[in-house]
């Protein structure tokens, strides 16, 4: 059992009257890729920035790489890499210069050219930052986060604005970081991204973790199938491990009455379905 890179117990955070985090607890093992999901305003950035040491907490125990991030100094920052949800870099420097500048802050940085290649900016290495496209700027953020050769990488919506090819490339990059034994905490609104990358995910809503587990666990195990049809004008959704028998019964009954099974759909639930039903407002 690998040691915990991050452990969070009973974390609370309020902004004035507003409770952004209400008792959050989770652990991330060394070498694990952990995905934090949740709708806008759920508290993902608040959580990640508390772990990065940017924000103070109101209550709870937080340990990151053995440090309390609120009090940690340079030794902690040597070992983490950060992609913020929003930030810019010097518009007048080039891609290579930006990487070199940041590399100089670390004791054992990676080679700047190597990192630039890793994030796919080698054709833009001498371009000024202000001339990069939105997705290219995001890749620069990623490169700058990796140039210190961190053990733990925080990625707050790292692939927002990426085209499909760039997203696939970023996935490959994150997988290669994982194979190097790095721990990764990422937030994303792309459910397929979480499904592809994360060993485990937690779904946040209104400052609470409402579900946690592997993507497979969250989609309800591997052998459940979702059957949907309409009956008397109502949508019926049935999750079953025996879809064959259910369909047989449905279709037999319909045939006997000489009618169609309306709106029949058969599919495996995706993380997106689970996510949407979890995060939907429970009104009415």
């Amino acid at each position, binding site marked *: 059992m690998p040691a915990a890179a991050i452990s969070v117990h009973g974390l609370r955070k309020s902004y004035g009257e507003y409770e952004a985090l209400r008792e959050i607890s989770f652990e991330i093992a060394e070498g694990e890729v952990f995905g934090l999901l949740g709708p806008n305003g759920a508290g993902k950035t608040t959580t990640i920035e508390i772990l*990065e*040491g*940017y924000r103070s907490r109101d209550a709870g125990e937080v340990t990151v790489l053995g440090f309390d991030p609120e009090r940690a*100094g*340079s*030794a902690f*920052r*040597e070992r*983490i890499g*950060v992609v*913020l949800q*929003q*930030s*810019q*870099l*010097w518009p*007048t*420097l080039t891609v290579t*210069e930006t990487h070199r*500048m*940041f590399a*100089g*802050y*670390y*004791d054992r940085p990676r080679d700047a050219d190597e990192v630039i290649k890793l994030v796919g900016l080698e054709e833009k290495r001498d371009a000024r930052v202000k001339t990069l496209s939105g997705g290219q700027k995001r890749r620069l953020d990623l490169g*700058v986060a990796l140039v*210190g050769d961190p053990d733990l990488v925080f990625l707050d919506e790292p692939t927002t604005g990426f085209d499909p090819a760039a997203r696939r490339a970023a996935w490959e990059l994150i997988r290669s970081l994982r194979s190097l034994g790095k721990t990764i905490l990422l937030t994303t609104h792309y459910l397929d991204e979480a499904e592809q990358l994360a060993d485990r995910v937690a779904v946040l809503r209104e400052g609470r973790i409402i579900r946690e587990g592997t993507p497979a666990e969250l989609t309800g195990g591997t052998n459940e199938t979702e059957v949907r049809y309409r009956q008397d004008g109502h949508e019926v959704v049935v999750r079953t491990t025996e879809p064959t028998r259910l369909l047989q019964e449905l279709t037999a009954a319909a045939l006997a009455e000489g009618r169609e099974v309306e709106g029949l759909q058969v599919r495996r639930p995706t993380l997106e379905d689970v996510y949407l039903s979890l995060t939907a407002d429970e009104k009415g």
Partner: protein
Amino acid sequence: MRLYRHQLKWEQLVFWRSRESAVFVFLFPLLLFTLLTAVYNGQIYGHPASWALLAGMLGYGAATTAFAGLALILVARREMGILKRIRSTPLPPATYLVAVLTSIMVVFALQAASLFVLGKLLKSTPWPHHVLSLVLSLALGAAAFAALGLALTGFIRSLEGSSAVVNIIVLPTAFLSGSFGSVAHYPKVLRAIGDVLPLKYLVDLINGIYLNGQEIWDKPRAVAVLAAWGILGMAVAIRKFRWEPREG
């Protein structure tokens, strides 16, 4: 120390790479000096006008470079999220700020030297006699203004409003402090306001040294007032300086 040198080097590169800072911060006092000496003739304080204007422009340069320039640069970086980004690296915040302050002082030193060269070329102004006193005075003035600039960033909420705020402070200050010529004929009220401003004391100090052959220690009051403003600026900066953008 290695980190400090690394950061100072990059600060210089970033400063000169940006056309806005290079033109508005570095060149502006030189342009103003050229214009003012072209229109002012005759004498100020019993010396050729260009000499007094050179002394005034050194003071104005300290205010516009170390105070206004620094504040604008730091507010821009704060609002862009660059300061926040830097905070996640092992670079200690104090090292970063000292490097940023030193960098702006280097810019001001080059600006002051350029003013003397420009004065010599355009109006045959003399080189300063008490170089050590002058350098110490300019360094003190620039340091005090840099501390005040750091403090000012805490009161500027957005990038859009920042240059307006800064100009509304610097331009009247420069007029009231005698950067653009003698204030002897100003109304009493205006002179009274000028008497509490740090730039007035810096200009006095430079005038004393450059025009009247004094040394820095002949003006202990001016030195004390400048130091007090610097300490005040530092104290406010420690409370008010922010690393993160105002929103988010």
